[in-house]
Structure formats: structure tokens, C-alpha cells
């Protein structure tokens, strides 16, 4: 049975599309400039958290490279707009493809060798981040050390016209990412990734092509992060290496995922929403250090009280794959189940 014949999956897809359409219709029309700009950042973080969790949350291979894929999306967009007359849509596609291609190459290299299994993967993605930053800073057609003014490049285009348009694009990307997250929830794809997280050698022994799943899902995760970077380039107006490739991105995304939990696909979404809202609320304190400390403490408290995150703490009421009803808050999900 393919995921697309599963009614519960269809309902979830439908709910995501509905929410996205409502947001696209309402926020740009009725929101203040601040609300639209905040909304844009909000959906961007949701997309980043969901796309990170798509690979790292599901498979257990923590990547510190998510900021790189996002940054590559930003720079690819800037480069396309600067050097060609192509419309933003082309830049968007290029942003996704370049980020996915880098992940594909890194994934093939890393996962081909059992030497790099486990924790070393994280270290390699971190090394990749430093290499990419150095390369981007020194390539004249990308940055050349001066940054790129995207605002002027996009001024006459639809996307550059208003923040509302950037919000619409950002929301569409976040919704698409949520769609992919749903496709890895109770499906064959999801079962494969979670079996890798539980015990990769056992997964192999049960016939799961672990290498293929890891490489392709890592590329998909990176591609979605690249897409999220495209409207960000226009939103920022001026892109520079220091602001775009920050380690804050992978760290915040990991925090959002832990906070939201990975036992359900929408965990990272809840985590991202919580972190963005709390950070915004803490801005009034006027001390970024203090707000970081409060956020950190909040994370510790949540982990202590809800070891499987916010989504993991919400009981399941629907029947699981095996026909029994569970109301527990365990980390287990009906990963291979068809009945949900």
C-alpha cells in the first residue's frame, strides 16, 4: 500500500494545505508589516526544523550542516538573480538543487564507508560547513568577500515587491516540507529511516537498503533547506557570509526538534513555533544573553518533564497498527503500521 492510498495521510496533507492557504490569504492582507515579517521568519524556521528532522530526526544521524544548505540556497538565489535575467522561480529551483547536490555528494562519500558511521557523521557535516564558508567567501561570482545586494536585483520582480509575497513563497515551501514529513510518518520510507535509527545492522539484515535511504533522504533534507533559503535572500536584501552561514541555524533547529519531539512528524513544527514565539517574547527583556539563558533553561525543563518532547507527551487515541489502543507517551510510533 502506498502512502497515497492511506486516508489518514491524505487528511493530514489536506490539513497542511488548508492551513497554508489560510495563512497565505490572511497574513499578507490583514497583518501589519511586523506581523508579515515575523510570519516569514516563523514559516522559514518551521521549514528548517521539519527538513532537518526529515533526515536527522528520523535516522538518528545528527547533522550540523543544515545552516550550510540553507546558506547555499540563499547564495544560489543571489547568484542567479545577479548573473542572469531568470525569474525568481528559476533561482528557487537552483537553490534547492545545489543544496541537494552537495548533500548527495557528501552523503555518498560519508555513507560509503562504515568508518564514518555514527557520531563521525556530525563532525564531517561540521567540517563541511567551514569549507563551504571559505569557498563562498572567496568566489567572486558568489560573494567575493563583499556580500551581495539582492534587494536591488529583485526590486522589479513579484517576489521583491512586498514582504507579503515572500511570506507566500516561504509558507508554500514550509507546507511542501510538511508534506514530505508526512510522507515519512507511517510509511515504508519512515519505517526504513527509523529502523536505521534503532539498529542499522538489524535494518540491513531485514532487507532495508540503508545506504540508499540515508543518501537520498539526506539530499532531500538539504534540498528543502536550500529552498527555504531562496526567499530569505530576497527578504534579507543584503546577504553576507557571516550572517547567512551561522552555526545558530543547526543548533536552533536541533533544539526545536528536541523540544517538539520526533515521535510524530509535526513535533519539530511545534518545537519551531515554540522557540520562535518564546524568543520573540523574550526580546522585550532587552538582554539577548538573558533571553538565551531563559530559553536554555526552558529546554532543560521540557526535556526533564517530557523526555519525548511536546508531541511525545500528547497521548495517542487512535488505534495503532496492531489494532490496540495505546494512550502512553512512549517513544514508540506505529512506524510500519497501516491502520492509523
Amino acid at each position, binding site marked *: *500500500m*502506498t502512502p497515497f492510498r492511506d486516508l489518514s495521510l491524505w487528511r493530514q496533507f489536506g490539513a497542511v494545505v488548508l492551513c497554508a492557504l489560510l495563512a497565505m490569504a490572511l497574513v499578507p492582507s490583514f497583518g501589519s508589516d511586523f506581523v508579515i515579517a515575523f510570519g516569514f521568519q516563523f514559516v522559514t524556521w518551521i521549514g528548517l526544523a521539519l527538513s532537518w528532522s526529515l533526515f536527522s530526526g528520523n535516522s538518528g544521524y545528527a547533522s550540523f550542516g543544515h545552516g550550510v544548505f540553507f546558506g547555499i540556497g540563499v547564495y544560489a538565489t543571489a547568484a542567479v538573480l545577479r548573473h542572469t535575467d531568470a525569474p525568481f522561480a528559476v533561482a528557487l529551483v537552483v537553490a534547492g538543487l545545489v543544496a541537494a547536490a552537495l548533500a548527495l555528494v557528501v552523503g555518498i562519500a560519508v555513507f560509503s564507508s562504515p568508518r564514518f558511521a555514527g557520531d563521525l557523521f556530525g563532525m564531517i557535516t561540521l567540517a563541511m560547513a567551514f569549507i563551504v564558508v571559505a569557498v563562498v567567501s572567496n568566489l567572486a561570482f558568489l560573494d567575493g568577500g563583499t556580500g551581495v545586494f539582492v534587494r536591488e536585483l529583485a526590486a522589479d520582480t513579484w517576489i521583491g515587491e512586498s514582504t507579503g509575497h515572500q511570506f507566500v513563497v516561504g509558507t508554500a515551501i514550509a507546507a511542501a516540507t510538511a508534506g514530505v514529513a508526512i510522507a515519512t510518518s*507511517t*510509511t*515504508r520510507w519512515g*519505517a*526504513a529511516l*527509523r*529502523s536505521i*535509527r*534503532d*539498529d542499522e*545492522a*538489524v*535494518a*540491513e*539484515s*531485514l*532487507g*532495508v*537498503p*540503508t*545506504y540508499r535511504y540515508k543518501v537520498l533522504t539526506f539530499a532531500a533534507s538539504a534540498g528543502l533547506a536550500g529552498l527555504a533559503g531562496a526567499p530569505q535572500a530576497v527578504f534579507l536584501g543584503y546577504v553576507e557570509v557571516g550572517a547567512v552561514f551561522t552555526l545558530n541555524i543547526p543548533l536552533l533547529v536541533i533544539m526545536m526538534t528536541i523540544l517538539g519531539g520526533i515521535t510524530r512528524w509535526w513535533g519539530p513544527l511545534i518545537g519551531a513555533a515554540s522557540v520562535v514565539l518564546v524568543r520573540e517574547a523574550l526580546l522585550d527583556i532587552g538582554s539577548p544573553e538573558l533571553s538565551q539563558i531563559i530559553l536554555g533553561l526552558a529546554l532543560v525543563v521540557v526535556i526533564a518533564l517530557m523526555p519525548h518532547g511536546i508531541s511525545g507527551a500528547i497521548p495517542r487515541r487512535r488505534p*495503532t*497498527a*496492531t*489494532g*490496540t489502543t*495505546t494512550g502512553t507517551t*512512549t*517513544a*514508540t*510510533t*506505529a*512506524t*510500519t*503500521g*497501516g*491502520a492509523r
Partner: protein
Amino acid sequence: MSLLRCTGVTKRFGGVAALSSVDLAVSEGEIVGLVGPNGSGKTTLLSTIAGSLPVSGGRVEFAGKDLTRTPPHQRAQAGIARTFQVPRPLGSFTVAENVATASMFGRHRTGRVEAIDRAHEVLEEVGLAAHAGAQVGALTLHERKFLEIARAIALDPQLILLDEVLGGLNPSEVAMGLDLISSLRDRGMAVVYIEHNVRAVSSIADRMYVLNQGRNLADGTPTDVLDDARVVEAYLGGPVDA
């Protein structure tokens, strides 16, 4: 023709040879007992057949194909199932989902709903039906061991590699396990069965291989093998009253 044929299989870890040119042949639908003292290379041989350990030399052929360089998941899909000596259930899956995963990704790649149905059938066979919806953490040792067998069956293999699957169980559980293993042969599956308990293996095996220090020591019918003076000498340390 043999279903499985290992020829001159050698495995070195650094300078240590865990397996030195080991030969093993298994025909369709037979139970082959694989015994030998601790460290004789039984589990290492099993891992080279399952593909989780690459060989340093020799060939592994299965159903007429050379699988020497084939990754483990392709061997599983080709019809080789294995169990782990220390049970390794997938921790975030229920008992039924553990079994269903094998059906989903195994030889016939079933859909999810079909896989869960198949999992329930297999769990029924091994006597774990009551635990289908349970978390694996709730299982006892004997249930975990039988879950290993259930997962292997759900791959619908032609060959099952069992690694001390009855170790640590009480006599009545061992008897149940032996019946279960015999029933696999009745369904046409071949079995390579490693067991510490030589008497248990010899009671159901059609043929036996004895390894010692990573080499073939003897093979033949259980009676012949157990009477072999070299086996008695190397492995049992004295005559057996079997």
C-alpha cells in the same frame, strides 16, 4: 545442488585469522548444525554468510549466485535470513512492527497493511500472538529470542541462520524452540543452526559441521560427528553418553 556453498572462506581481523579456508555446503530444506568450542569462528562464519562481515578470502554462493561482495540487505532480499545471538529488536517498534519490517523489505516487499497481517500470522506460529502490540522492552528473554526467529521467518527466506537462538532458555522453552526449528525444515527452508547445546542441535540436525580454531574439523551425520575422536578431543574433552 547446494543452496548455500561457502568455499575457502577466510576472515582475518588484523593479523588474527578468525576463519581459515572454511568450507560449508547446505542443501535445500536441511538443518545443518554448526558447532565448535568458544572462539572457533561459528558466529564469524554466520556473519560472512549474512554479509555483515566482508570476507578476506574465499567465496559465498547462494542459489547459484556469487554473493561474496553483496551487501547484507540484498542477501536478505535474496532469501538469507539471520538471527542475532543477543536479541536485537528494533526498540521503537512494537513486536508486530518488528516482524512487519522484515516482510516489507524482504524477499517479496509487501505493502504495509499486508506486512502487518503477515506479521500477525508469523507471531501466531511462534507463539507470540498475544504480544503483537507490545513494546519490545516488555518481552522476556525467551520471547525476544522467538521474536528473532519470527523476524527471520517474515523475510520468507530459503535459508535461515540461527545463532544460539535457544541459549539461556529453560528445558521446556528449548523443546518448543526445537519443534519450531524442525517446522521450518518441513516448510522447505534450510537452516544453519549454531548452538552451544550440542545435544539439542544433534537431536534435530540432518548434518553437522564442527569448527575448531577457525578451521573445518569434521562434518557428517550427528552420530558420525559426535563419535569422531577428533571432535571428542577438541570440543568435548571426553566421550559423550548421547
